[in-house]
């Protein structure tokens, strides 16, 4: 049967369609119709429920299958969590950059910078003779820049948020000053741009004084501009120390900067 079908002709197919027992062209015709017809959609849902009861049985899935599924979900998460609640933007717009998920996520994370890179890299290579291996670095930089842009937007929004608590962290000699802002939900941002540069094998570590003691809020590299962090309780003090790459559980170093929330 070809050509447009009437509602009744489609309706006759719904049972077979729900059981995946129609030919591809019929399936397509039914799906087109379902998009416009709530009554037929409801009927298919009913049929699927009955089918599910027929197909529903006990028993366990094979051993080890979950491990294989879990193992194929995605690459490891980046060192810092970026799927924090971002004021003024849906988390979904940020998360895919941080966590490469197949489907929707992948498109955002790599397509955008890659397209921009195409033209830019061609010019760079032709004019400056830059080695091709630099492309990947540049791609990484551009992805990082996009993440930073999101973060900075979120941090700026937090800075002007009237509910936020501001902390000024200073060095003991008063030469270095950075600002952190903490929202009522425990999301915080440290504007780390003005911290002194560190050698490659050193990192900064952010600490928070809570009722339970001094806890690590995360580590960050010297070129980081905004450090997101999450606190579960109120913070009486914020401090930044300099540590060996990887960070420490408890620091014995004096703080580079420290400050109490205003």
């Amino acid at each position, binding site marked *: 049967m070809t050509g447009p079908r009437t509602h009744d002709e489609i309706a006759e197919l719904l049972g077979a369609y729900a059981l995946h*027992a129609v*030919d591809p062209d019929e399936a397509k015709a039914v799906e087109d119709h379902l998009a416009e017809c709530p009554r037929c959609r409801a009927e298919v849902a009913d049929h699927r429920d009955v089918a599910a009861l027929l197909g529903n049985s006990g028993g366990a899935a094979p051993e080890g299958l979950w491990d294989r*599924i879990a193992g194929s979900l995605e690459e490891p998460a980046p060192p810092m969590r970026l799927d924090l609640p971002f004021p003024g933007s849906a988390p979904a717009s940020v998360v895919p950059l941080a966590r490469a998920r197949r489907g929707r996520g992948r498109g955002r994370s790599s397509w955008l910078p890659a397209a921009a890179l195409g033209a830019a890299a061609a010019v760079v290579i032709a004019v400056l003779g830059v080695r091709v291996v630099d492309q990947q670095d540049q791609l990484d930089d551009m992805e990082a820049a996009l993440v930073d842009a999101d973060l900075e937007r979120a941090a700026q929004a937090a800075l002007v948020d009237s509910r936020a608590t501001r902390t000024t962290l200073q060095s003991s000699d008063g030469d270095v000053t950075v600002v952190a802002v903490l929202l009522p939900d425990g999301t915080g941002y440290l504007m780390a741009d003005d911290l002194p540069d560190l050698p490659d094998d050193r990192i900064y570590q952010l600490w928070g004084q809570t009722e339970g003691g001094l806890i690590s809020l995360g580590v960050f590299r010297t070129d980081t501009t905004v450090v997101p962090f999450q606190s579960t309780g109120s913070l009486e003090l914020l401090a930044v120390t300099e540590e060996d790459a990887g960070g420490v559980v408890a620091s014995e170093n004096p703080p580079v900067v420290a400050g109490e929330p205003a």
Partner: protein
Amino acid sequence: MDELDDRELTAASDAVLVVAVSRYQQAALAEAYRRHAGAVFALARRLLRDATLAEEVVQEVFLRLWNQPEKFDPARGSLRSYLLAQCHGRAVDLLRSESSRRQREERDVRRTAEGGYDLEHEVVDLAVAERVKEALQVLPEGERQAIALAYFGGHTYREVADLLGEPEGTVKSRIRSGLKRMKGELAGAGLGGDL
């Protein structure tokens, strides 16, 4: 929504689990798997008669839930129904693929010789089997056969018509009327789609 801890995950409804899955919470997918993977696997294996292929289908179904959680619409049925429908669709695709066609034809010949399908014996879940069995018993033989060959055999209604030597239109109508009749019976028995 903050991440759910283990206790909250265990207590969460399927719909809440899927929301957590959409927030990239792997533990929520693990919980959905714990609840439904057994049934998904059993259906895939029953259709494909091959444990390895069935495992692949289970993997695809749960990866799809992870990658496209928004495809599940709680307003249109339970998660179990949705996952089983996904599983059924994928298993049927595999059955119909060229590579397995020949094998399947041979199997069908053998099955016909053994007396064909017995739908009542295909439904094994103890909790609902009785009710489903009762609902099946009210179906006329023609409807029961058509549904069994389509659903558990993975045949199109045209193939079912061929197998049974009935007109295509008749088989198409029987599948639909049989499903409607069962829906009525199961709703009367308090099993109307609520798995």
